[in-house]
């Protein structure tokens, strides 16, 4: 494997993605969640992957190391874009993306928060390069109720706007699974433009197949041809619907057989 070993060991700093560990606040308030995250600055033509990478690739993995008594929540994933060309369609990010998670400190913490993120990721264009890097950040404590925005604070705010939101209570979602695939029905919203469905589970839909939208009374349907790999009957069709002009919403549609 001599030919490609140079790629394997490419240090992150020289690769197509530059990574930086940042915090939303310049100082943390003990007992109050502090959002930290990894910024990926990705060269043009390259991409990294969403939590469901689609047909190829793998999502970045972040392993956090925190001082004793600190805890970290799960990473929040902004809405991805569709990448690649049929028959291989992926979900991921180009340009710049921030993957953030909340860190909770003990209420009586007085020590600086030394945070380490071990990041493993694959960055691809025509080819893929795996990389591993360790990032560190220290945030001092500052008791009291005031906020101390860091220079990265606006990026955290902007990134939150790209998170899929919970589905509004006024919506009703369901999915029928026939031999061809899923018919997703969403009631309670009438999109003006084409909606895109991003599956959160792998192996359910054919990622490369066109998604056909139809308007119905008080809603819309989307046909989602099923994946070749679907051999079991899924309980839910879990994913994100992106509605241009309205935003992205996470849905979990119960799957039923079509009426006879």
């Amino acid at each position: 494997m001599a030919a490609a070993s140079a790629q394997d060991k490419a240090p992150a700093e020289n690769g197509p993605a530059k990574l930086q560990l940042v915090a939303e606040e310049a100082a943390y308030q003990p007992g109050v969640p502090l959002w930290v995250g990894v910024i990926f600055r990705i060269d043009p033509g390259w991409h990294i992957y969403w939590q469901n990478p689609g047909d190829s690739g793998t999502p970045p993995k972040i392993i956090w190391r925190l001082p004793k008594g600190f805890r970290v929540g799960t990473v929040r994933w902004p809405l991805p874009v569709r990448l690649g060309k049929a028959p291989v369609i992926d979900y991921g990010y180009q340009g710049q993306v921030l993957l953030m998670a909340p860190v909770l400190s003990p209420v009586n913490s007085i020590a600086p928060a030394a945070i380490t993120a071990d990041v493993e990721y694959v960055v691809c264009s025509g080819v893929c390069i795996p990389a591993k890097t360790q990032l560190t950040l220290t945030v001092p404590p500052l008791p009291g109720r005031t906020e101390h925005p860091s220079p990265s604070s606006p990026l955290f705010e902007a990134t939150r706007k790209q998170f899929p939101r919970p589905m509004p209570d006024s919506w009703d979602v369901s999915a029928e699974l026939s031999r061809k695939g899923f018919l997703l029905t969403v009631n309670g919203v009438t999109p003006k433009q084409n909606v895109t469905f991003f599956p959160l589970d792998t192996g359910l839909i054919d990622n490369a197949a066109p998604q056909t939208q139809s308007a119905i009374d008080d809603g819309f349907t989307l046909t989602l041809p099923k994946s070749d790999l679907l051999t079991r009957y899924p309980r839910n069709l879990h994913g994100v619907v992106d509605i241009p002009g309205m935003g992205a919403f996470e849905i979990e549609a119960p799957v039923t057989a079509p009426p006879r």
Partner: protein
Amino acid sequence: MEDRIMKKAAAVLMALAFCLALALTQAQAARVGKHAPDFTATDSNGQIHKLSDYAGKYVVLEWTNRGCPYTQKHYSSGNMQNLQHEWTAKGVVWLTVASSAPGEQGYVTAADENAYLKQANAAPTAALLDPNGTLGHLYNAKTTPDMYVINPQGVLIYQGAIDDRPSTDPSDIRGAKNYVSMALSEAMAGKPVSVAAAQPYGCSVKYR
């Protein structure tokens, strides 16, 4: 006038033939539990292989791209070669398939491929060269690696990931559930295949 009608008729016939060919390819798509589509492909020694030649044997198809880090995970560790040695010794026909188009990563000439197989101590029954992606598209192979297991009756009994650890890290191989070995062991023991499909992981196949 007659000439024009003939031309029109020929065009209609061509269109019909095209539709029929398309219908056939669609009908023949690889699906777990169904007959695996037959194919004809040439290997790195110029030998022609047809799936139907191997009726009565288990056949493994392994999509490969030696420049892909997910493929390298299984070759630099020796995992893929071990699987090839182990299963071909048990009578399994193991065919690697290189569907990268010329100019793309993983495209190989016959001579390159033979030198590589020797250097890597790889032991597939044959290395199929598929630079037009015909075989890749027939099986709808998406990644390298992407694995298919066909039983002696010609039925596709497994499709997808090589194992349950989607990563490029060779240290993940130890302790991973190898779905190809599981499918072969279970089927040979007369048991149902417990995992018949799993989302493949890897680089995209570098089709034209």
